[in-house]
């Protein structure tokens, strides 16, 4: 940890809080709006805080969203875990084991990401229909992996490349095998990168709308984002549900990140020197 420039670390906290408040200020409208009635939300009198707090918005949103929490959680966790499982060895092989065809794989992965999701989804729907996994959770997980895996491969490759290879070299000269070197030297230092990729591989399916929209029509299997999307009906926008629901859907993800980010900090302090 760099020795702080300021004497007290709390000064950093203050600056951090101010910056956060400024950057998150648009969310204030979401928060205060979620506690207003629809009529007050659009009244010409701009008020900083609702006249009376309408808690029903939140309770209704909780009731409506609660059944879908499990689906979102399962899909996100599985996507994240599978992505890491599939991508970590591949990233390692591509960066250091110099397998043939690594250029092709990377370019192909990247190019696949360049297709807009809407266009991507039509053939995916066709393939999944034939495999009969439309409207199933494994189908959605596989669908979500089509964007988490390329992302993970590119980022893990970058994090691994950043790592000074001399340390692994030293260990290999000392007689350790590739795998031992990987687990005892590379992993502890790059754990930060791995956890970060895992977090994003969790957050991306959590917030995904397009794939869920196309691959799941059973209302029982719909993740949170789809249920929230219903707020935007053809005939009216249910603002109370939309605003309260948005904050509610973001909440578990934030908690997850707080929990996981502890690992980033502790992983970092382990350092590279023994």
């Amino acid at each position, binding site marked *: 940890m*760099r020795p702080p*420039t300021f004497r007290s670390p709390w000064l*950093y*906290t203050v600056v*951090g809080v101010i910056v*956060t408040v400024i*950057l*998150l200020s*648009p*969310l204030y*409208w979401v928060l205060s709006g979620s506690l207003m009635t629809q009529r007050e939300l659009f009244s*010409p009198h701009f008020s900083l805080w609702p006249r009376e707090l309408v808690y029903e918005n939140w309770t209704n949103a909780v009731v409506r969203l609660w059944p879908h929490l499990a689906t979102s959680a399962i899909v996100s966790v599985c996507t994240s875990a599978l992505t890491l*499982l*599939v991508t970590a060895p*591949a990233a390692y092989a591509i960066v*250091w*084991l*110099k397998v043939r065809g690594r250029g092709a*794989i990377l370019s*192909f*992965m990247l190019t*696949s990401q*360049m*297709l*807009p*999701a809407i*266009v991507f989804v039509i053939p*995916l729907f066709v*393939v999944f229909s034939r495999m009969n996994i439309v409207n199933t959770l494994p189908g959605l997980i*596989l669908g979500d992996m*089509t964007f988490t*895996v*390329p*992302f993970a491969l590119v*980022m893990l490759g*970058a*994090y691994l490349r950043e790592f000074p*290879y001399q340390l692994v070299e030293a260990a*290999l000269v000392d007689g350790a*095998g*590739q*795998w031992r070197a990987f687990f005892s030297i590379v992993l502890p230092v*790059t754990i930060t*990168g791995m*956890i*970060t990729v895992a977090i994003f591989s969790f*957050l991306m399916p*959590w*917030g995904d*709308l397009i794939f869920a929209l196309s691959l799941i029509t059973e209302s029982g299997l719909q993740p949170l984002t789809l249920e*929230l999307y219903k707020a935007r009906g053809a005939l009216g926008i249910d603002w109370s549900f*939309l605003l309260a629901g948005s904050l509610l859907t*973001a909440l578990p993800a*934030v*908690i997850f*990140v*707080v929990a996981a*980010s502890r690992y980033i*900090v502790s992983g*970092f302090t382990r350092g590279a020197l023994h």
Partner: protein
Amino acid sequence: MKQLEATRTRVSLVPPVEPRPLPHRKAAWWRALAPYSFILPIVVFTLLLLAYPMLYSLTLSFRDATVDTFVSGDMPFNGFANYQQTLSTGTFWQALVNTIIFTFCSILFQFTIGFLLALFFQNRFPLKNVLIALLLVPWIAPVLTAAYTFKGLFNEVGPVNQLAHWFGIPGLPWLALPGFALAGTIVANIWIGFPFNFILLYSGICGIPQEIYEAARIDGAGYWRRVSYITLPILKPVTVAVLMLGTIYTVKVFDLVWIMTGGGPANTSHLLSTYAYQVGFSLLNFGQAAAIATVIVLLILSLNLFQLLLQRK
């Protein structure tokens, strides 16, 4: 860096240590193929789930795939007709220019803000974890919400105009004016995207061993010197990756613009993605939408190549 490259190439493929080694015949075969077992799952995944959609989209762009032909399945090939039609529409070129402006401005600000935040959060202080998680909220929150929020902020009688009044600047109907509508969507996109850059760069900087900084401090290098001569060069692979992914994701942004302006007013804030959607889902011309999608891919490819060339300098 060159030294590292040299040492890397000298490493031979050492077979994984087995508890019970196999006979020599198997070892050679196993040795050669082991690395490929690392990438086997990903190759299978790519072929099945990534290659097919890409090929499908590409062939679709050469077919006449509209309401009449899509369902029956016999969408006749019509060569470059879809491309010709696309390239001859004024809206397409406007959308192309808009996309480039949108991407460039978004990435510039997102990266800068993200990088500065990543540097700031290297210090240890109380509540750091909580603040990091909170700063991710713009990215986690549904795009739907962010879009409507900014739409409300830029309303003719909304908060932004009210602030402008306090400063004596006349308010504008931001999202209803041709140039400003795009600007409004860019601001919203910067807000949504900076956490992505922030966290990825932050992890990248975390991985840099402290000893290097110590050595530089002892030599008397100031803070920003340390950043430019140590952090930035070591961070290069991460920076390249973040910029590349950022470009890809920004060019594909769709929901945000669709909800905020619908591509209007009068098609002046269309991005290629919203234009493709209008063609594909409103006009139900899937062939042309696929053609526009291919153009998007080509655009991103060239933008990425451009970035890589800049990095090589």
